Every structure is written in C-alpha cells, then in structure tokens.
C-alpha cells in the first residue's frame, strides 16, 4: 500500500531527534546512560544531564546547558544603560532586585558617579531583602529535594512578604526594575521602613521553626552530609564564589573585601563552612539570612534623609517632577534623558563592576564606545561558573544525591544561559 502524499500544511511534524531514555553501553554492558532533563522537576530549571550509571551510582555525567539562552548580552548592545535594567530582572529571577543593583553598580562605576547616602542605604536594605528572598527559596528547595515539603511551604510564605515589600516599593512584585543610574526610580514610600522592620521581627520565628525541622533531623543530615564535597583549593580553582565557596571555607565576600554601598558602615559577620558539603552550604545560607536581618535593621535605623537621586546637573537621572513641570529647562532635561537617542553618554573605556549577590559574585564587564549604549556587556553569572564543577561534584554519587547536590548549587537557568 502506498502512502498518500499529504499537503504541506497537513504534514506530520518532523520527528525530533532525541536519545531514548536508557541506552546500554556497548563496551561495558553494566553501564547505562540516562537522560535527566531538560524538562524535569528536580532540575528546577532547564538543565540536561546525561548520566552514565552503574546500577544507581553515577559513573560519568555530562551537563548540557543553553536551553534558556535568550541573547541577553546581544540585547544589551541594543539597549541604553537604563533600559537594560528591565532585562536584568529576568536574569536571576529569584532575586531580581539584586541584579538591578549590581547592574547599576557597574554602570555607575563606568560613569564614575557617587550615589547619595540615602540611596546607598536604601539599596543596601533592598539588596539584603533580595538575598533573603533568594536564600529562602534555595534552602526550601534543598529541603524539598529530600522530601521535606513543609519547609518549602514555610519559605514561600515568607517570600510572599518580601514580594509585598517590593510591590510597595516599586509597584511590581516580581520584575522590579527599581534602580536607575545615579539613584532609583522612586524614593522609599512613607511607612515602608516600618513594614521592613515588621518583616524582620516576623522572619526569625520562621527560621526557628525551620531549624527545628531540619538541623538535627536525621534524614536530612544523612542525605546531605558528605554529599558533593568540594575542597578549599578546588573551590578556588573552579572559580567558585559566594555561599558555595564559603561552604568550602573560602573566606571571601565582596561586601567585606571590596566594600560598596553602605556595607563599610554596618556591622555583620561572614559565615564560613568547614566541610564543603551540601549540609555546610545549607548552614552558611541559613546564617547569612540571620546576618542579613541584622544588616537590614541597622540600615533602616541609620537611613539618612536627603535626595535619593544624584544631582540632576549631572544629566544622568530624570529631573525632579517640580522642575519638569515648573521650568522649561527641567522639561528639556526630562526629554533629553528619556529619549532613546539622547540620554547620558559613557566615556570610551572598559570597566568591571561586581557585587556579592545571594548566589555569588555577579559582575558586569562593560565596554563603552562613548554612546548611550554599551558596546559589550558581559555578565559574569555565578550559576554558570558553579555548574562547571557538576561532573566533579556528582560522579560517584547515586541519582538521588545528584538531585540534592544540584539543589545546593542553586543553578538559575536564566543566569546560567543568559
């Protein structure tokens, strides 16, 4: 029987070439290859791991990434410095505010602008809230992977409170785009500092419950201790930063080592882990939440008054609304700033600015050609750097431990693939 030719629009779709689920190894019949991802709940993101298994033990692992590569860096070359902040929201989507602040930190370094004291403190508060937001989900995820769904729900409840705070601050609960070069889109609203303090009062209660649930829990300990161990030297050699490196005992935190914003004026400690396993990363993150609460309390207490934007004579921030409405110069300034072919221009040079976000060192390398757009804006995303060590971390463990190790790395696809 001959097959009838279908018209082109009724043709069945091309069969997508994908490997079958399990493949037996030709040389060693005990080894089977298993595909994990790209769409799998335990990867949390779009990672594709090809694992060679001996029984349940992983012999070899090859990560495939790029399933969420959306051309962020190409997009940055076509957006002005203030426009691109909307795209940074979508980079590490667990803590969008931290990305906003890191991006404008790099831009302000390129423009050589010193922001106002009020803005420094406000950004510090927001950056720490974003750190708590990120750690809460990550710690909850770590618990979820070993079966503690309750802990995950606890964490998400508190994230909702942070969403409320951000919504009050900038009008959006998720994609915030709050910062602008030389300041922020709006000052802190009245009563917001009290809302933040209320949250700081409420959060430790959850943390206590959380600790009760997990810290001395035998299942949690047995699943996370001595899993995915990274030594001090290797953590440095694999370019690890942030809680991942600190879990292995690397004493490095940009907030202390390369102080920015209001951090030199505030008191806090940097927690360091000793074992370099999943459990010690979890402990480091929990302690960082505590420290962040303390930083926020101090920053709210010392929040200076004054303007949030730098002087508008610099022609970088928008003019004050009274000026825009009141004087022709203010109106001209407003339009000069918002028009995409005008705006402020950066000097012809290159510069790297980095901040300590929840995941590690988030840096932007900017090359400017003297216009209002970046010539090149490379993102140094911590997730991308951390996942390189996947094969080193996960080989020799069982599949269930791979999932736990992956959760502890806090890999965010949008930051990984950009």
């Amino acid at each position, binding site marked *: 029987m001959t097959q009838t030719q279908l018209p082109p629009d009724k043709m069945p*779709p091309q069969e997508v070439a994908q490997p079958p689920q399990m493949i037996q190894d030709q040389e060693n019949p005990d080894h089977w290859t298993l595909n994990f991802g790209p*769409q799998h709940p335990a990867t949390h993101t779009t990672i594709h791991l090809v694992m060679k298994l001996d029984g349940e033990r992983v012999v070899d692992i090859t990560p495939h990434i790029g399933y969420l590569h*959306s*051309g962020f860096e190409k997009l940055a070359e076509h957006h002005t410095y203030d426009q691109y902040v909307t*795209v940074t929201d979508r980079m590490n989507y667990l803590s969008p505010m931290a990305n906003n602040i890191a991006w404008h930190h790099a831009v302000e370094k390129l423009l050589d602008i010193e922001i106002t004291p009020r803005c420094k403190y406000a950004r510090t508060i927001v950056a720490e809230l974003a750190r708590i937001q990120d750690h809460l989900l990550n710690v909850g995820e770590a618990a979820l992977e070993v079966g503690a769904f309750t802990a995950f*729900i606890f964490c*998400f409840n508190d*994230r909702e409170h942070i969403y409320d705070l951000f919504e009050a601050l900038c009008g959006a609960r998720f*994609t915030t785009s709050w910062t602008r070069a030389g300041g922020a889109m709006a000052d802190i609203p009245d009563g917001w500092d009290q809302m933040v303090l209320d949250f700081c009062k409420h959060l430790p209660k959850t943390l206590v419950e959380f600790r009760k649930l997990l810290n001395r829990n035998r299942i949690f300990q047995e699943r996370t201790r001595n899993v995915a161990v990274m030594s001090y030297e290797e953590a440095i050699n694999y370019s690890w930063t942030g809680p991942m490196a600190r879990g292995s005992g690397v004493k490095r935190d940009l907030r202390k080592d390369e102080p920015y914003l209001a951090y030199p004026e505030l008191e806090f400690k940097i927690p360091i882990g000793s074992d370099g396993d999943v459990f010690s990363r979890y402990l480091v993150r929990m302690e960082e939440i505590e420290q962040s609460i303390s930083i926020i309390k101090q920053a709210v207490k010392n929040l200076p008054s004054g303007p949030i934007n730098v002087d508008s004579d610099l022609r970088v921030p928008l003019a004050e609304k009274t000026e825009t409405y009141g004087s022709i110069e203010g109106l001209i300034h407003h339009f000069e700033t918002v028009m995409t072919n005008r705006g402020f221009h950066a000097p012809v040079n290159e510069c790297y600015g980095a901040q300590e976000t929840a995941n590690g060192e988030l840096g932007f390398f900017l090359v400017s050609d003297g216009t209002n757009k970046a010539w090149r804006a490379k993102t140094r995303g911590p997730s991308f750097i951390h996942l390189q060590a996947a094969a080193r971390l996960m080989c020799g463990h069982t599949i269930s431990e791979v999932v736990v190790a992956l959760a502890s790395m806090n890999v965010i696809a949008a930051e990984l693939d950009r």
Partner: protein
Amino acid sequence: MDGNRNNLPDALADKLPILTTTLDTAVGWCRKYSLWPMPFATACCGIEFMAVACSRFDLARFGAEAMRFTPRQSDLLFVAGRVTVKMLPVLQRIYQQMCEPKWVVSMGACASTGGVFDTYAVVQGIDQYVPVDVYIPGCPPRPEQLIEGLMQIQKIAAEGKTQSRSKPLGVVIEPKRTPVPLSLKPKEEDILKPPGSMC
C-alpha cells in the same frame, strides 16, 4: 451540575434522589475540578507559578494542585517562561506526548509573543508552533491573573469542547487592575499638581 429536572413529572422529581443530565455535561463537570497541570516552567514565570501553587494563592482550591511532571499523566500544559530555539523541539515533543483532551496555557509575555526578548535565540510566540488555548498577559502575570486563566480553562473543560476541534481556542485573559492597599494610597494633598493651567 446543569441537571435537567424539567423533563420529569413534578411529583417524581421531588421524591427521587436523581438528577438527569447528559453524559457530556457530567464528564465535563468532573474534568473541571480535576485538571492535572504540567508546568513547563523555564524561566521567571515558573517561580510565579510556584507562588500560585503555594499557601497564599493555593491552586488546590481549583482542583488543579496535582502537578504532574510527565506529559502522559497531565491534561493541561502551562508554558511558563520564554521558549528558545533550543527548547522548542522539547516543547513540541511534550505536547505530542500528552493525551487528549489537552489544553495549553501560554503564561506571560515571553511565551505568548517573545516579550522583551526579540533576539536571535527566542521563539516569538509559541503559538506559531504549538496550538495555544489561553493566553495570560503580564511579565510575569500576577497570581490572580493566572487563577483567572485557570478558571477560563475550567469553563472550557466543562463545556466539553475538546474532541475533534481543529483550531486552538485562543482566549486572552484581560489584565485586571489590582487595588492599591489603603495604607499606600496617596492623600489628596500629596498629589503633585502641575502648576498653572496646563490642562
């Protein structure tokens, strides 16, 4: 249930504990409250989707909390987040693996149109390659909007318009204005008025 008691004699209808209906309506009613979504969560919208499933918004109220991560067990595909050129074959494959009846929700601007990512690597709207029944706008949509979208799917499921439909439904959820909390509402004297007679 939209039962039809009118066909029975009144005396009988009052006494008997029965309800007559069509089979389609009964099945549609059952389906309505037992949707099993499969979150195809790639990016930011996935986190909002998690928020909807968690305590505050609680998707379980609509009978859709049983997330299935295998397409063979689910009937509602939530595409949450941008779909890239590398990911699209995976999405098509997953859609093909789902059993009928099945619906597709395109959640957020990126899945519906490509959103802010008008670049070489992002598919400009999944509806070019996969049939989409409900579009939810927003970047990402608020949880309330997502629930609105789910209720729309419930309506479609209850009507039973699934078998042998040749076109995707293409329903668009309208964005709703959320009320400002009272504590943040600007007072009359705080609102900056433009000087002079500008308007």
